[in-house]
């Protein structure tokens, strides 16, 4: 509105708000634009605080060192190696999941977002992409560390086949993690509730990824062509799709009072 005598910067730009240059008259902002704005903000905050990625990476590397000594083995292979890798990645991811909405909850980011004329799904998409980016950086550090500290067979041999389980695992963790983090962050026991809700939902992803990766971690190929079993990749893709749709369907309600 533009009352007579208004001297705000808005009035200085134009007397008619709805025809004013520089804005679109309270029309809903495009989802892609909002996702970009949220993502940019998310990554800036992470770059300034370094609250998620360093902690996730350090946790994963430390866990591999602990396994190295606890198992009293120089190397592991096969299903054992796959289990260690995916359980470690899962718990490291939980650190990122737990921090995903903390700045928004503690610094009024939710309210600022909810007051804007935007599609709320943009927040789900932006947070899931941010979490995916965190997981990617985590894996760029953790997977080579796993190859150096624990894995018996050369990592280079398993790496091409490992990309598909890593990608499908990351998508599932991002979808479920974002959903659960949004649910938990507004509760008083968010640090406890997040993992309690997320872990049971993430178990099928760990199982799928570990089963899909295990054949890649044998020194000699055992009953396969060196690729991850398609059955498990298909299961992972289906699980990702289902939880992606669930997250899309219920995310708006999680943001409501």
């Amino acid at each position, binding site marked *: 509105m533009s009352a007579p005598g208004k001297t705000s910067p808005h009035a200085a730009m134009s007397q008619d708000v709805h025809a004013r240059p520089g804005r679109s008259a309270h029309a809903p902002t495009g989802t892609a634009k909002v996702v970009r*704005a949220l993502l940019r903000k998310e990554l800036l905050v992470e770059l300034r605080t370094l609250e998620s990625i360093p902690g996730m990476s350090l946790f994963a590397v430390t866990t591999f060192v602990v396994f190295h000594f606890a198992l009293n083995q120089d190397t592991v292979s096969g299903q054992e190696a796959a289990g260690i890798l995916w359980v470690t990645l899962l718990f490291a991811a939980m650190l990122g999941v737990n921090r995903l909405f903390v700045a928004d909850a503690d610094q009024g980011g939710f309210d600022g977002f909810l007051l804007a004329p935007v599609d709320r799904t943009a927040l789900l998409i932006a947070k899931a992409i941010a979490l995916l980016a965190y997981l990617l950086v985590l894996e760029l550090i953790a997977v080579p560390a796993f190859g150096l500290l624990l894995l018996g067979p050369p990592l280079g041999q398993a790496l091409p086949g490992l990309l598909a389980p890593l990608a499908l695992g990351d998508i599932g963790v991002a979808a479920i993690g974002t959903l659960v983090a949004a649910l938990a962050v507004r509760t008083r026991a968010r640090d406890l509730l997040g993992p309690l809700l997320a872990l049971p939902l993430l178990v099928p992803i760990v199982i799928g990824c570990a089963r899909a990766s295990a054949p890649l971690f044998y020194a000699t190929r055992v009953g396969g062509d060196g690729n991850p079993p398609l059955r498990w990749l298909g299961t992972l893709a289906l699980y990702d799709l289902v939880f992606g749709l669930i997250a899309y369907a219920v995310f708006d309600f999680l943001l409501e009072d």
Partner: protein
Amino acid sequence: MRDIEVQTANGRTVEDIVAAVELDGLTRNYGERAALDDVTLKLDAAQTLVVFGPNGAGKTTLLRVLATLLRPHAGKVTVLGAEFPDDAWQVRGRIGLLGHDPLLYRELTARENLRYHARLHDIDDELVERQLAAVSMTSRAEEPVRTLSRGMVQRVAVARATLHDPELLLLDEPYANLDPAAIELVEPLIGPSSGCTRVLSSHDPGRGLAESDLVLGLRAGRVALLADATGVSTNAVAELYR
């Protein structure tokens, strides 16, 4: 008596549309406790409602309901022609909220925060610079919000709350942390001359009464005082706190 009775397409009259805020029996609970209990009032466009009341009276809850951040549990709430909660989405982007929390990310600079909000509201960066200049924060705009004084953060918060030129301003003790010069600085944005409909919570009877048209006094969530500002004395407001 209505002088004009024009029906619009959706059946609303001109007089209905003029009311910027209309509450009819608004109730909002926190668990068993009623934070707002049967609040009824009507505020016309471009007018200011000042809300007085002791801590815990329900002032902030009222502002958050009007901001669409809390759902009413009973009663009818109509803001800028939209009935809550079903049509609340229609008024997002038309409301500016300045609360106790500045809604700014501490690790981002003042400029980054305003640009972030500008993108959410689809506003050009040019207006961000104008807002920074309006609250005299251009020279400190590249510093993280966590390094700014409380007064400066409040000035940036004023710029953030008015960035999208809202029709309705919800102001929760807006002059807290501001020195007299800063209060004068932000007046065109959030003061009476902003031309916006305003709902203002305050503990300052003198200032609150001076810049309001309607006075609401809350005590334990209930309406203890509702009158035109011209008919309310500072003593009547002081009674609310006893």
